[in-house]
């Protein structure tokens, strides 16, 4: 692969009808590029959980995927309320999701831990009142 493939999506806050469309596009692109299926699934789960987080918690944001020769880098960036305590947010079962999100089957407090579990490199930075940046890297030959 010569130049990296870049995909960027504006994710709309609280719109559950289209949530997941961007992640599905990212997954299909990886498949088309011949990336092995278990890596595609890990990438899809990371992208989808990050996308759902933007929808539920951040009033939307940007979801970006950069596919280069040996890796996929996913970045979810928002200007939402920020996360007061990242350690707490990373704890399985901890959630601040709305009732609407819970009725859709989310808000089990598994999102961030699940993103981390599927990532080879995982970083999250958050500033209260400014927003959150999540970066996840998945290597193709690992």
């Amino acid at each position, binding site marked *: 692969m010569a130049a990296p493939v870049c995909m960027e999506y504006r994710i709309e806050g609280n719109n*559950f*009808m289209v*949530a*997941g469309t961007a*992640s*599905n596009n990212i*997954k299909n692109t990886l498949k088309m590029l011949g990336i092995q*299926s*278990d890596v595609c*699934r890990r990438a*899809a*789960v990371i992208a*989808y*959980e990050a996308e*759902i987080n933007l929808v539920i918690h951040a009033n939307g944001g940007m979801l970006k995927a950069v596919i280069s020769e040996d890796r996929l880098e996913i970045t979810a960036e928002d200007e939402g309320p920020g996360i007061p305590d990242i350690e707490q947010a990373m704890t*399985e079962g901890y959630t601040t999701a709305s009732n609407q999100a819970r*009725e*859709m*089957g*989310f*808000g*089990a*407090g*598994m*999102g961030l*831990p*699940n993103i981390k*579990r599927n990532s080879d490199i995982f970083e999250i930075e958050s500033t209260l009142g400014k927003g959150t940046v999540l970066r996840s890297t998945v290597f193709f030959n690992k």
Partner: protein
Amino acid sequence: MNLKELAGIINAEVISDVDLGEINIPYAYACDLMSDVLAFCSPGSLLLTGLTNIQIVRTAQMLDLPAIVFVRGKIPLEETVTLARESGIPVLLSKFSLYEVCGKLYAAGVKPSYVPQPREA
């Protein structure tokens, strides 16, 4: 077991454009929490759920799940059916409860989806 036989076992109504006899179902995972499905459900598993919104199909797409069973007589929303059709994911509707569907499929030899054990703290 193929999906056609499976549909018979749970008296399911089928919404699908694809041939159910061609789809093999080795495992199943029953859950109404999509977050848990994303965390614990192994690829190739049939998803059994009582939730009927469009994100159920999104979740199935992400994990390469072969089909979805909506239990306890739930009727999926129109957009859910539309996306499932577009994605080539068969939808089965069963009037049995989640517990009954699980029991019938387990007895018929459908194995549990692999669930990873929690990590040591």
